[in-house]
Structure formats: structure tokens, C-alpha cells
């Protein structure tokens, strides 16, 4: 898309332009939200919320960042807010932590498919990442963004993203390998 044209048409309230935008970015936003929320239904809900927000605020868009960068930033913020909300709701619920000692091999889990088990382990490891590492990692792995693009979304430098990604991978590796050693072998 030729972004500046699209922005102009959006700001004029052209419905067809909004339809085009939804076609272009909606699924990308769903992917980002999936990386944070690990659940398709919740991710779709967030993504639709993001598009509503974009429609509502497009007149305020000044073009300091690219349109998609701006939209992905909204997606990250909305996802993080949703996580914060569910965390507050689950404050007193039992939360199983993946820590070095907390995970015992649970015979009930043997009935789960291997894939579900893998997903669960990955999600817990991701959720345990510090916020910035998690943001960088989700944008890189779920949205396949370049480090340069991630730096734009997170409004930081390329080298910061490189460092965040390195630390995110190291942290994930540690959690995952610990889990495998305790539960698979």
C-alpha cells in the first residue's frame, strides 16, 4: 500500500480505505496478540479492539512513525493491558509456575497431546520473561518483524533490541531446558 495515500483517505473517513486497512493489518495484529495472550479467541478480541481504536484515533495520527508501526504499538499496549487485567483477576487463583523446582511430573498430563504440553511450557516460559524482552521476542517471532522495525515500535535503538532478543532467548532456553531435564528424561 502507498501509506500516505491510505492515511489521507482514512482521515477523510473513507470507509473503503478502512476496509483495505483491516485487510492489510488485521491478521498481523492477531498474530501479535496471540504471542502475548496464547489464545486465538482473546487475540481476535484484542485485534478488533485495536482496529476500533485505529478508526477512532486516525485523525490524531501525525505520521511520526509509519502507520503499521503505530498500529502495532497500539496492539502491543492493548495486549499488555489485557494481560494485566487477567493477572489481576487471577491474583488469588492457583498459578502453576515453571520454576526450577515447582514442576513435578504430573501423570494427568500424560493424557494431553504432546503439542498441548509443548505449548503450555512455551507459554509459561514466555510469560516469565521481563516485559521488554517479551515485547521484542513476540514481535520478532510471532510477527516476523526485523529488529529495525521492532526498534521503531518500541521506540528504542537497534542495539537495545539486539540485546533484548539475546537475553530473551537465553532466558527461554534456560527455562525450557530445565523443564526438559526434569520432565522428559
Amino acid at each position, binding site marked *: 500500500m502507498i501509506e500516505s495515500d491510505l492515511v489521507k483517505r482514512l482521515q477523510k473517513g473513507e470507509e473503503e480505505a478502512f476496509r483495505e486497512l483491516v485487510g492489510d493489518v488485521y491478521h498481523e495484529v492477531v498474530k501479535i496478540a*496471540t504471542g502475548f495472550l496464547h489464545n486465538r479467541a482473546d487475540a481476535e478480541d484484542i485485534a478488533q479492539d485495536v482496529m476500533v481504536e485505529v478508526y477512532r484515533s486516525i485523525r490524531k495520527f501525525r505520521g511520526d512513525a509509519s502507520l503499521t508501526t503505530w498500529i502495532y504499538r497500539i496492539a502491543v499496549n492493548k495486549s499488555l493491558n489485557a494481560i494485566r487485567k487477567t493477572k489481576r483477576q487471577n491474583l488469588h487463583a492457583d498459578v502453576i509456575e515453571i520454576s526450577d523446582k515447582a514442576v513435578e511430573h504430573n501423570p494427568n498430563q500424560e493424557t494431553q497431546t504432546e503439542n498441548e504440553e509443548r505449548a503450555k511450557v512455551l507459554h509459561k516460559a514466555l510469560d516469565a520473561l521481563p516485559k521488554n524482552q517479551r515485547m521484542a521476542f513476540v514481535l520478532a517471532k510471532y510477527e516476523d518483524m526485523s529488529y529495525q522495525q521492532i526498534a521503531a515500535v518500541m521506540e528504542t535503538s537497534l542495539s537495545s533490541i539486539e540485546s533484548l532478543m539475546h537475553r530473551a532467548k537465553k532466558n527461554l532456553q534456560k527455562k525450557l531446558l530445565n523443564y526438559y531435564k526434569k520432565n522428559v528424561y
Partner: protein
Amino acid sequence: MKCIDVENKLIFYLEGDLKTQDNIFIEKHLDHCGKCRKLFDALQATWSVMDDEKAMTPDPFVYNRIMARLESSGMKKKKAGPIGIPRLVRVAAIVLLLVLAGFTGTLLGSKYVQNNLLPEDLDPYEYYAQEFYLDSYADESIEYYILNQNEYEDENGK
């Protein structure tokens, strides 16, 4: 390279972040060390979960869903008409239609009257016949007809 060194680099090996030299070392190690191989396979399998999660089945109704949200949030008014014509234009269009309908009616009516008054392209005989059948009772009032009905019947032999 010891197992611990390999373990610490598995994720970077998987991600293709390593230099060629390291890549070769790890590849060789994984070929003969079952313990590290298992860890690597598990890591790779877990990593592939992300690809599954990213796979999308496009929802053809997404745009409508978003529009419905916009409408329910009051951000966007419900569509005014079938093609979203502004209210003022619609009112003007209705008024114009009414005026046009009235005008057309008057025009058609006057043309009909005109035809009856000035049957220029009608054959004089035909015209006469038409006049005769249509208007043969024109001079006779309904009262006259009712009053003299018995007379007619008598005349017809009743």
C-alpha cells in the same frame, strides 16, 4: 566442546544466530551426543508451536464484526440508508420524487384530455362511432332513465 557449552548455545544454533565455526562444532556434537540431541529435538519441537500458532484461517466476516463494534461503541452511526446517503439528500430526493410524480400525473392527464378533444389522427368515421358508443346516453339523465325504465320494458314486450 563440552555438553554444557553446547546446551548454552542450542537456542542460538536453532535460531541461526551462530558463526559458521560454532555451527559446525554443535552439528558434530549433536551427531554423537544423544543427551544433547534429545534436548535439541525437544527445543525445536517447542519452537515449532509458534509456527502453528501463527497459522491463520482468514475470517471473512472480520470487517463486519469491527463495524458492529464501532456502531455499538457509538463511534460510528448506523448506516443511514441502504447506501449510506446523508439524511438531507434523502429528504430532498423524496420531495423531488413527489413533485415529479405530481407533474407527470398532470402531464399524462392533460394529454388524455387533449386526445379526446382533438382526435386529429382519428378517422372521422371512427371518431363518430366512438362518440356514438361512448356518449349515446350523454343527453339522458339517470333520473330520466329510471323513470322510463318500465316503458322500455313494455316496449320490449314484457
